């Protein structure tokens, strides 16, 4: 069983095998996030009660970007923040202890809000499961929706995204890497057929 794969770090990029290709470039990512933002508005009939929460690490930057786009479109402020899920993971015994990432819930809280969880890659679904548990301990949203930049398939739980930047059917041997300007210098989604790497 593959572990729940989250976006890999930049250092992985330096050891990337030769067969790496770009599936989304910076312009593609911007377009995808803009589309997702519009879909969120459409689905929820406006930005009232919206709270956008990113799952660390890269989901947080994506959440802030989506909130900014929606805010521009609506000419309003959409609260955004981060929701760390480390303490809710189901694989703690399998991995070395992780340092916690910040959880920053906007001042309005999440009670009665429509919370849109944002992550970079949707894979096994275990991260989202953990995020739902974490969110439940913070408050009681009216509804929870899920937006991801890339859906690469291979779900291990009955979870699906409401908003998807790009569906990317992958092999379990392949690796999906998301680079974002906030962390990595530039925006790109790469896929590599790791020859047993990872």
């Amino acid at each position, binding site marked *: 069983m593959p572990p729940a794969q989250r976006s890999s770090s930049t250092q992985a990029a330096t050891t990337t095998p030769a067969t790496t290709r770009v599936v989304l470039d910076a312009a593609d990512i911007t377009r995808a996030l803009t589309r997702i933002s519009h879909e969120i508005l459409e689905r929820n009939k406006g930005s009232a009660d919206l709270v956008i929460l990113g799952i660390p690490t890269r989901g947080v930057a994506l959440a802030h970007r989506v909130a900014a786009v929606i805010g521009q479109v609506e000419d309003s402020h959409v609260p955004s923040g981060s929701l*760390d899920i480390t*303490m*809710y993971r189901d694989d*703690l*015994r*399998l*991995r*070395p*202890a*992780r*340092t*916690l*990432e*910040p*959880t920053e819930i906007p001042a309005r809280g999440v009670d009665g809000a429509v919370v849109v969880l944002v992550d970079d890659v949707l894979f096994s679904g275990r991260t989202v499961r953990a995020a739902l*548990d974490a969110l439940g*301990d*913070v*408050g009681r949203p009216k509804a929870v929706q899920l937006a991801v930049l890339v859906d690469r398939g291979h779900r291990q739980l009955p979870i699906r995204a409401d908003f998807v930047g790009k569906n990317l059917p992958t092999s379990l041997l392949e690796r999906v890497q998301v680079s974002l300007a906030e962390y990595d210098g530039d925006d790109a989604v790469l896929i590599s057929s790791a020859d047993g790497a990872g």
Partner: protein
Amino acid sequence: MQRHLLSTADLTRDDAVQILDTAEELRSLADRPIKKLPTLRGRTVVNLFFEDSTRTRISFEAAAKRLSADVINFSAKGSSVSKGESLKDTALTLEAMGADAVVIRHGSSGAPHRLATSGWVRSSVVNAGDGTHEHPTQALLDAFTLRRHLGELDGRRVTIVGDVLHSRVARSNALLLSTLGAEVTLVAPPTLLPVGVSSWPVQTSYDLDASLDKCDAVMMLRVQSERMNDAFFPSAREYSRRYGLDDRRFARLPEHAIVMHPGPMNRGMEISADVADHARSVIVEQVTNGVAVRMAVLYLLLSREPA
């Protein structure tokens, strides 16, 4: 980080920073409606206390419970243990119970070390104070409290005053705060500094007044007045006059300096009542921070592959 927390000497700077950073995130839990995390669900933490210390035990118990661990309190005082059942037999009992972590307080220096290295138990061992050796989680919570008030500890001056010879808090703090870059000065009458203290990564002084002007924090250690029966000092009054933090000395501290005490305090002995209750005394906050720090320690020790 290693599998056990026995001494702050075993913590690298990165280990210590990881614990403090984790504790920082966990402390925000205190403001949430639901303070409990599911992280250690199904894990068992045993509090094995051979010495009375309600404060420390409660702090560890709260930490473990907020992480959803099952907690077994094993107070060995007055039980079969003090009547000769060996540490080994107790350890084997805990092992049979399937303890994932043993938090041990013991009157004999090195007892946690013994438990961890003897092969009697597979669990992680957390030293909750052993004899006159160490009390690592107390030092971690002190460092945590210092960091919240002073920022990063590099170059910060911390003065620790009192019965260093018998203080596990002083030992653990001297090592940890030095690891974190602070400049530590131990102040005590010569009788209460250990032989060999010159090999510690600290300055020492017999003169409290000379150490006050430039320090960023002063930590007062509990001094048992019984020590005067062993001629460590002539009288409680003389001790208090030479080494107590009274209002006059407090006034000489820099504006930003904070006052700490691991508790329980002897008001009027090592610290005056007014100083203990002053706004710049962070003694009550130390207790709150203790839970977050102990949560961080339990999380980091237990959320790893079992051996």
